[in-house]
């Protein structure tokens, strides 16, 4: 640092005592600031390549364009505010800036029967997918070991040629059955197109996997009502609603549609306010809205439903369910007296080994209420052709030779005993269409990144949420930012390039969506009136993994309000979203009953270890008065090992200690059937971040400083 007196041309400098006065300080600020300005700032904007805009835009004037939220199976219609702006893009293999129409905000589409102009917090954050800094901007080819995450750039032509060659090889060897397509169970014409292509190629139907799958309920509904489908509830006209574990206002099924209808039920009509009772072992977001919360032993909710329906006596089940006789009798009286009444089941009660019984028992209760297909009850929306899918087990058992993975991350969302990663390692050729590198796409040989939903044609035919059939298809809201391609169009291009091109394929996904439907709408599956009672569901005791003496707690993973099954942990807005019940964010936590924690000497934020027969995880404890003393709960979604800068190595993954118990013979994972033990391993490690609480996440540099406690 030069002598200060040299800086001042008029000879004045710091005072003789070494202190400077205010005037001198300001002058010095000006000098050093100007110097910095001169040295630091040339005009680098001139070096940027600016591309010619593709659209004619009126600057500063917004348009709202419709699209569909892709984040869950609800298929909410959204509108995106599109305004011109400068975007960093790839055009013709070159990076640069372009002025283009950019989606800036998502809202619910008021004309959509599902979302009704509303949108949940996850849907609001969906805008961040398009602009995510870690989004893949061009196709990638694996260079390192499987799962190492080392990829090199490749052109689309090379990538498509490679996939086509592999498929041609299989076709030449008459081994088309060795192609498998793994995706999420979404009802859409896109999946229909995929299934059509697979069938024409000679492969088996697509494999569908989702952690919080509703397949058990669909199966039960097929048996009870003849509809292999999720029901739609007419909450608006119901006078009595009883929910068995279904977080229908938060994460389960069509939460936006439910919330809107629930609001109208509670506040939107004259007369006495309808009653809502929630049965669960943990106070969820939905339970917190209820007039009455009934705590029930995990796996016995179906018994309570049967008792309310009058098929069981209260005395007979009180011991198994843990619900007092008087409560059961009162609920039964209320349910019968306050029609129309409807019962909802979803989430944890179905994720026990006896899930089919539980669902059948609640269906029985709805039949007893005589509200199936009636106002204030449940109904099944007419469905378009339903695409048959296969369960995940088929990929694990019969290792395919070519595996195409579309928008699903089973390495993260399956229990370790399924050994999905090992199964993937045995597959010789894996193509992923993921727009991000995650635990599953890191195992792929080729990644052909999909457009974001705002950049491509999208469609949805949701199976519930609206009593009338709903199906929607929309064009892109904005032009693609990067060198990505719509997966449906990539598949069509591959199909055209085969040695024996598939017949009857549309030229593009856009053409497919715009072509007139062949066939027409399938009739409503509920033609048979099923208000007549079917055979009483027979009680099956739930089976739990782990001995109760060694593992005294029920382990209840639950769908995170922010991340759902973890597929949204890469969106920083959702990381920042406080959990509605605990206010925790950016972290994992274990919910444990307050009094039980006191018994065990566990305090808020203490690090505890949760151990099952499958392994253990460590996370801070959150003391919750609203959870059963013999249960601990953890949100699913954190604990990614490789999923963008925001989710990687943050928190722990409760799925990693789940036992591979299945729901009856369905092959679905009973994710609520694991027992655990809990042990305090240390004091608070600052990883429990509560909104507005005393705890705050501290950056690394703050650790070890003396003044931060």
């Amino acid at each position: 640092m030069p002598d200060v007196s040299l800086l001042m041309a008029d000879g004045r400098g710091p005072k003789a005592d070494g202190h400077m006065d205010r005037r001198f300080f300001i002058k010095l600020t000006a000098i050093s600031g100007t110097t910095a300005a001169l040295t630091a700032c040339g005009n680098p904007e001139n070096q940027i390549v600016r591309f010619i805009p593709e659209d004619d835009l009126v600057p500063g004037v917004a348009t709202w364009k419709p699209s569909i939220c892709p984040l869950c199976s609800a298929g909410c219609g959204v509108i995106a505010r599109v305004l011109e702006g400068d975007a960093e893009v790839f055009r013709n293999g070159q990076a640069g800036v372009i002025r283009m129409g950019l989606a800036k905000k998502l809202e619910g589409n008021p004309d959509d029967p599902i979302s009704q102009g509303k949108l949940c917090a996850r849907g609001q954050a969906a805008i961040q997918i398009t602009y995510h800094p870690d989004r893949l901007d061009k196709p990638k080819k694996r260079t390192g070991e499987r799962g190492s995450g080392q990829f090199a750039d490749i052109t689309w032509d090379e990538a498509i040629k490679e996939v086509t060659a592999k498929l041609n090889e299989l076709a030449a060897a008459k081994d088309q059955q060795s192609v498998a397509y793994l995706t999420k169970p979404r009802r859409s014409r896109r999946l229909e197109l995929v299934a059509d292509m697979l069938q024409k190629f000679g492969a088996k139907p697509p494999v569908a996997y989702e952690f919080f799958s509703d397949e058990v309920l669909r199966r039960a509904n097929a048996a009870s009502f003849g509809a292999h489908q999720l029901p739609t509830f007419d909450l608006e006209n119901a006078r009595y609603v009883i929910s068995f574990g279904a977080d229908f206002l938060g994460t389960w099924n069509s939460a936006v549609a439910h919330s809107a209808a629930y609001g109208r039920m509670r506040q939107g009509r004259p007369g006495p306010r309808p009653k809502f009772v929630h049965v669960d072992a943990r106070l969820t977001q939905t339970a917190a809205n209820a007039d009455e919360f009934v705590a029930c032993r995990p796996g016995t909710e179906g018994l309570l439903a049967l008792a309310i329906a009058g098929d069981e006596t209260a005395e007979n089940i009180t011991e198994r369910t843990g619900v007092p006789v008087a409560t059961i009798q009162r609920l039964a009286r209320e349910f019968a007296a306050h029609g129309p009444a409807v019962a909802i089941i979803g989430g944890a009660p179905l994720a026990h080994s006896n899930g089919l019984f539980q669902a059948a028992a609640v269906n029985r209760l709805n039949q007893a209420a005589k509200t199936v297909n009636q106002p204030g009850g449940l109904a099944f929306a007419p469905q378009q052709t339903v695409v048959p899918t296969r369960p995940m087990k088929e990929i694990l058992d019969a290792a395919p030779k070519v595996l195409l993975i579309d928008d699903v991350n089973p390495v993260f969302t399956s229990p370790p005993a399924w050994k999905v990663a090992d199964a993937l390692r045995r597959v010789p050729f894996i193509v992923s269409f993921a727009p991000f590198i995650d635990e599953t796409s890191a195992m792929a040989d080729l990644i052909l990144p999909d457009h974001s939903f705002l950049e491509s044609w999208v469609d949805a035919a949701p199976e519930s949420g609206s009593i009338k059939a709903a199906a929607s298809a929309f064009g892109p809201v904005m032009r693609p930012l990067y060198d990505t391609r719509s997966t449906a169009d990539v598949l069509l291009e591959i199909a055209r390039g085969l040695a024996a091109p598939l017949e009857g394929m549309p030229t593009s996904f856009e053409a497919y969506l715009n072509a007139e439907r062949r066939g027409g709408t399938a009739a409503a599956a509920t033609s048979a009136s099923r208000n007549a009672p079917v055979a009483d569901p027979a009680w099956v005791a739930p089976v739990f993994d782990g001995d109760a003496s060694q593992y005294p707690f029920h382990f209840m993973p639950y769908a995170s309000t922010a991340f759902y099954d973890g597929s949204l942990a890469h969106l920083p807005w959702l990381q920042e979203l406080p959990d509605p019940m605990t206010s925790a964010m950016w972290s994992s936590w274990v919910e444990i009953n307050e009094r039980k924690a006191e018994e065990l000497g566990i305090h808020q934020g203490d690090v505890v270890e949760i151990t099952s027969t499958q392994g253990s995880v460590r996370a801070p404890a959150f003391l919750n008065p609203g959870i059963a003393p013999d249960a601990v709960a953890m949100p699913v979604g954190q604990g990614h090992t490789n999923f963008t800068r925001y989710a990687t190595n943050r928190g722990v993954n409760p799925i990693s200690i789940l036992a591979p118990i299945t729901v009856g013979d369905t092959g679905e994972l009973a994710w609520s059937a694991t027992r655990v033990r809990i042990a305090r391993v240390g004091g608070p490690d600052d990883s429990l971040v509560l909104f507005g609480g005393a705890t705050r996440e501290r950056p690394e540099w703050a650790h070890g400083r003396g003044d931060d406690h």
Partner: protein
Amino acid sequence: MLLAGLLLAATAACELTSPGQPKWNDPSVGKSRWGTDPVFTPARASFGQAFREFLGRRPTEVDQPFPFSHQIHLSKGAQCIDCHSGVESGPRAGLPSINTCMICHSQIATDRPLIMQITEMQAKGVDLNWNRVYSYFPESHVRFEHAPHIRAKVECSTCHGNQAEQTVARRAVDMDMAFCVNCHKQKQASNDCLTCHY
């Protein structure tokens, strides 16, 4: 201590690169020595920019990628709105893309070196990266809208000077708040704070 801090800030500013440069997937670009992103604050790219804005200083002449002459075009009968086409319909008048130039210049004066230069740029898909001459600092919270002013028959030259005398546009009028308020008074337009600041 304070002096050391100031000089540290100055050195830091030298290390920060400007935003807007493509930087994805390139770990070599755009991190300061503390691993922070190339922003001084969320609103400002560098210390220098913040400092200039703090002093309210801005150049009257702005470097442009191309020596466009307003004078020639206006003398040939072109109107402002022909190129600044958003002026009647939206808040911003807009700066024309190279496609706008080529509407006429695919036919007119194609033999001139500068026109040949932009023809070549268009063929490559590269646009002219104009720099703005007039704008408000974010702190002023001014939301200026062109369209209502055009509807009120305010001449372009009232705020932008006589462009027929200019080649490359430079800031001929200093648009401070007194300038706006005086005109609003004369024209009996609202001088409510929320008319412009929101």
